[in-house]
């Protein structure tokens, strides 16, 4: 590729994630953009490639007791606990609005059992505006449930069950809190996932030593933000070598440089999370900078740079 030959205006931003096509690879991560309505006054949402609303469950969940978040150096811990009003309230109150926005709506679901995942998928199949499902098999804040994201066999069954239950493209969102993320990724691929998103938050905690107590109401929480970007990049890089399905990179993305690093590591699209909290318009800023960054590498489309990492060291 000859960098000089590629003009910014001719760069194509469309990306393909299995059966799911996005107008551009910049999306916002589940749980970090509310149900999108909150952002209407601040963000030109129609321009986003995709929107992932906050994870929904079958039944309403109150979530964990506060404090639910605490800032840490370069990041934050959260233990929200999937606070949501359940799938029926979501379909009635949030989905009609989301459907009218334009970007692909990828609905994030979590179940306490395999059957619950399947039932949610069947319920969402065919709903106007739902373009794909993301399976949150990786939330560290839900106690009691089986951890579908850490057991490859369970993960494969959940994904396969959802594939059977609906005709929607399926993205499996994986946790970094495992010894070998590639084995879970392979299992999700074997289950029929169209794409994988990596990573959910990294399990952590914060302590008030004077009072001898954990700071979060739920004791443990998920670490997110710039602090976890190297972990997310590593996971995307490793999984890109191990599977054939496309990846969505998520973890600490806050600038165009961050996003480009994820493409080069092997991500076809990115999700922006915690950065929305401290810079509400960050996603549009990254989207605006994307054509020039791709052109700088002489790329005619996003796919031209995906997984191009070659050498090592300086």
């Amino acid at each position: 590729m000859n960098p000089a030959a590629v003009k910014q205006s001719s760069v194509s931003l469309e990306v393909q994630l299995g059966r799911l096509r996005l107008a551009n690879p910049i999306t916002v991560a589940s749980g970090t953009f509310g149900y999108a309505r909150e952002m209407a006054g601040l963000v030109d949402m129609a321009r986003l490639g995709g929107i992932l609303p906050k994870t929904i469950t079958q039944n309403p969940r109150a979530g964990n007791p506060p404090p639910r978040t605490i800032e840490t150096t370069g990041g934050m811990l959260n233990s929200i606990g999937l606070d949501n009003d359940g799938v029926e309230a979501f379909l009635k109150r949030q989905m009609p609005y989301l459907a009218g926005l334009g970007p692909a709506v990828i609905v994030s679901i979590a179940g306490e059992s395999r059957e619950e995942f399947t039932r949610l998928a069947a319920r969402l199949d065919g709903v106007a505006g739902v373009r794909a499902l993301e399976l949150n098999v990786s939330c560290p804040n839900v106690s009691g449930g089986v951890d579908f994201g850490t057991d490859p066999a369970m993960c494969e069954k959940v994904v396969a069950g959802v594939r059977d239950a609906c005709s929607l493209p399926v993205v499996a969102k994986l946790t970094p809190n495992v010894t070998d993320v590639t084995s879970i990724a392979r299992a999700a691929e074997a289950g029929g996932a169209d794409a994988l998103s990596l990573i959910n938050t990294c399990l952590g905690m914060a302590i008030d030593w004077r009072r001898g107590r954990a700071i979060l109401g739920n004791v443990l929480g998920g670490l997110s933000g710039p602090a976890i970007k190297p972990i997310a990049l590593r996971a995307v890089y490793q999984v890109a070598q191990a599977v054939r399905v496309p990846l969505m990179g998520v973890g600490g993305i806050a600038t165009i440089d961050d996003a480009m690093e994820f493409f080069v590591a092997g991500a076809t699209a990115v999700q922006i999370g915690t950065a929305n909290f401290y810079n509400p318009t960050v996603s549009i800023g990254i989207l605006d900078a994307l054509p020039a960054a791709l052109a700088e590498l002489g790329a005619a489309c996003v796919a031209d740079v995906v997984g191009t990492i070659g050498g090592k060291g300086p």
Partner: protein
Amino acid sequence: MTEDPRCTCYADHAWQGTVAIEQNVRIARDTFRLRFACPEIARRIVPGQFLMLRLAGTNDPLLGRPLALYDVICDSDGQPALLDVVYLVVGKMTRRLAALPPPTPLDVWGPLGNGFPPTETSHLVMVAGGIGQTPFLTLAQEYLGLKTFGDPPRRVPRAEAVTLCYGGRNRGYLAGVEDFRTCGVQVRLSTDDGSQGHHGLVTDLIGPVVEESPAACRIVCCGPEAMMETTAKIAHRLGLPCQVSLETPMACGIGICFSCVAKIRDASGQWDYRRTCVEGPVFAADDVEF
């Protein structure tokens, strides 16, 4: 458009941008008044709303911090131009902020939250503890007919009297008392150590103010949770309308993280965790499950 009926105050008229510190001066012990030009927010903000403020160009601290509107300053044409917030130094961000000279850049987004309802009130009794006096200066100005807020300006029927009951650890921490007096607010003070005003709790001051008042009272309250709970109970016992402004920790201020929740009761008396940034920070005291 279908939307959650409980949420009334999304950041639909919010502005996000970078501003420069114009003044950052100490006004009491560990307490500073910060001034910056921001006509976009100054034009729209109403008493009880807040802003998110963040040190620009650094990821440590990472998140914005919520600070209540303290005052709006107009330019020579009488147009709202400058914003004041008053902050107490308590932790990472406020410690760094206190050391920053003009014209250091700050990231800001707002106005956020619902603000105090402009309901007709004969005698407005404002109860503040700690740094909880900050949302009340503009509210007093509004009810005393000195200023209007919002775009278009919201109409607030004039009150016959406005009283501030304000308690602090000691006299050194009492901040901005003269600002209130200048507006014509009747000020009653308390301190934990008796160094100024009543020796004891600020909530001890509420009963006498209400008893002596010839006009019907409405109570608004902001401060530590225990003090808001006591105030809510007193108001309930006296049968007075009361709103509290909650200061739950916030990570985004715009409704997208679900970290700022408080237990709020619905009409049936059941509580649910609600986001204080978009459904508050001002709630009817009777709806809050302390």
